[in-house]
């Protein structure tokens, strides 16, 4: 099959199509990987080029994805078209809320603002969408809010941005940080 020929797209036909994301995100530094797997550029079956099936590997034995809790229903992933006619790409934006201001969160957010990241975002059905790729990492901008005595909530609103040519499912092995 020619990758660039279009295929029929069916409706859900009974499959789950739950909106929203699970209450966490997996985060790893771009420079911690020894190999950042990519989806194939061409394929023989429909959809093959949108799935990363190879495994990401890390340089150090104790490295892996860090699981960051996000408040349920605070996180969202969007991708918007950028560029001009005949040269379009995607700007992916991610947002979520991590509650609290304990020492680990303060440190994490201080460090992460100056890093390139690869993140795996689990959709409500548990499929990982990968945001960030080699050379096109996600950048996190964590905004802190103490909240007020009478209202609001204390913690970090984490906004991530990345540029990409498309959205990809990650189906390889997910190794957590030891």
């Amino acid at each position, binding site marked *: 099959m020619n990758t660039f020929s279009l295929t029929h797209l069916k409706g859900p036909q009974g499959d789950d199509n739950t909106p929203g994301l699970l209450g966490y995100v997996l985060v790893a530094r771009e420079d911690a990987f020894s190999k950042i797997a990519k989806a194939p550029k061409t394929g023989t079956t429909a959809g093959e080029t949108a799935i990363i*099936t190879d*495994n990401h590997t*890390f340089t150090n*034995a*104790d490295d*892996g994805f860090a699981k960051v809790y996000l408040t349920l229903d605070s996180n969202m992933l969007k991708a918007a078209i950028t560029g001009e006619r005949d040269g379009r790409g995607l700007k992916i934006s991610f947002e979520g809320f991590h509650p609290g201001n304990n020492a680990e969160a303060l440190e994490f957010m201080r460090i992460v603002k100056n890093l390139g990241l690869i993140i795996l975002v689990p959709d409500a059905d*548990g*499929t*990982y969408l990968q945001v960030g790729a080699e050379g096109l990492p996600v950048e996190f901008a964590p905004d802190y809010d103490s909240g007020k005595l009478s209202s609001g909530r204390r913690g970090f609103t984490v906004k991530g941005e990345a540029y990409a040519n498309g959205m990809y499912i*990650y*189906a*390889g*092995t*997910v*190794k*957590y*940080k*030891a």
Partner: protein
Amino acid sequence: MASPLPQLQPEVAEKFRSTVIPCRIEMPRLGLTFDLRTLTLAEALELMKIPDFTYLVPRPKRRKAASSSTSK
């Protein structure tokens, strides 16, 4: 501050060596989630049947005391 490194369960460590520091691992394609730190030997043997499973490698079998080869 340094906490001891995570380890395999002793029964697993007897037969296998971990190629990474034991941690949680997900294999979404196969719908598997497991933790190398709490893995039992039976589970480890099942995982070893997966072709691209690289996180455990069998330990080389200990050679029995080579008494016959050294004696004259």
